[in-house]
């Protein structure tokens, strides 16, 4: 396993440690952005260029922008940065416990077990995962319809939750 791949894996764990250690939502969103970007790197190094593209555009570009906006909406005057006492202590506890777990599993993993799709180690655009995603349209059509129906249902759920006039979940009494 190359040095760069190990760096990416470490970055994913560190990003999740930042999210989990209870800082203010600004810093948690920053940690999640770092984790998503590093996850893109992991996927493209395993040969999934189209899945990396999806993760970067849809997840990082769509959902996390909404999360950053909501962090600005629910802004708090008193925030806890990564260097404050409780957050740093929690990050230390999480980091040490992950390190202890990694030390426990260290004897059982193999250095060279880095499998890519199609056993093709170079970076390329046209890979197997793009063809696999295209299978969603014909054999996976039912699942596609279910997902589309769920997204449409979620639109109405969100509209009913935040309506707030005289009907819906949030009404004035």
């Amino acid at each position, binding site marked *: 396993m190359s040095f760069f791949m190990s760096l990416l*894996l470490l970055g*994913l*764990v560190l990003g*999740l440690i930042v*999210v*989990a*250690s*209870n800082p203010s*939502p600004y810093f*948690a*969103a920053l940690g*999640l952005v770092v984790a998503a970007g590093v*996850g893109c790197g*992991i*996927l493209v190094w*395993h040969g*999934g260029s*189209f*899945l990396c593209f*999806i*993760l970067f555009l*849809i*997840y990082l570009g769509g*959902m*996390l922008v*909404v*999360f950053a906006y*909501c962090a600005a*909406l*629910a802004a*708090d005057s008193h925030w806890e940065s990564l260097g404050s006492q409780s957050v740093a202590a929690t990050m230390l506890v*999480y980091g040490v416990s*992950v390190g202890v*777990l*990694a030390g426990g*599993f260290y004897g059982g*993993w193999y250095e060279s077990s*880095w*499998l*890519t*799709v199609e056993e093709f180690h170079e970076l390329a655009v046209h890979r*197997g*995962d793009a*063809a*696999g*995603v295209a*299978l969603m349209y014909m054999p*996976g059509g039912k*699942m596609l319809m279910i*997902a589309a129906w*769920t997204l449409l*249902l*979620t639109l109405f*759920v*969100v509209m009913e*939750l*935040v309506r*707030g006039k005289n009907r819906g*979940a*949030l009404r004035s009494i």
Partner: protein
Amino acid sequence: MTPVHFTFSSAFMLGLTGLTFHRTHLLSALLCLEGMMLSLFVALSLWALQLSSISFSASPLLLLAFSACEASAGLALLVATARTHGSDRMQSLNLLQC
């Protein structure tokens, strides 16, 4: 267990631990859920890629669609809480009166 498997497993467990213990904001809890979803996306993608079973590489996309539903419903609840309670602190959700 390879280092990649250990990494996304520990990322999922970190998100779960962060969701379980001492959340102050509702948005932080939602961000922990998103972190868990991110590690699940990476896990499903790596499953399809490492086993070269490319027919299953549509499954992370479907997971992403459902996690988008979850995130939007959670953010709608966040907006509703910020409108009724004034902030999204989890302590204020214990109050009976708005």
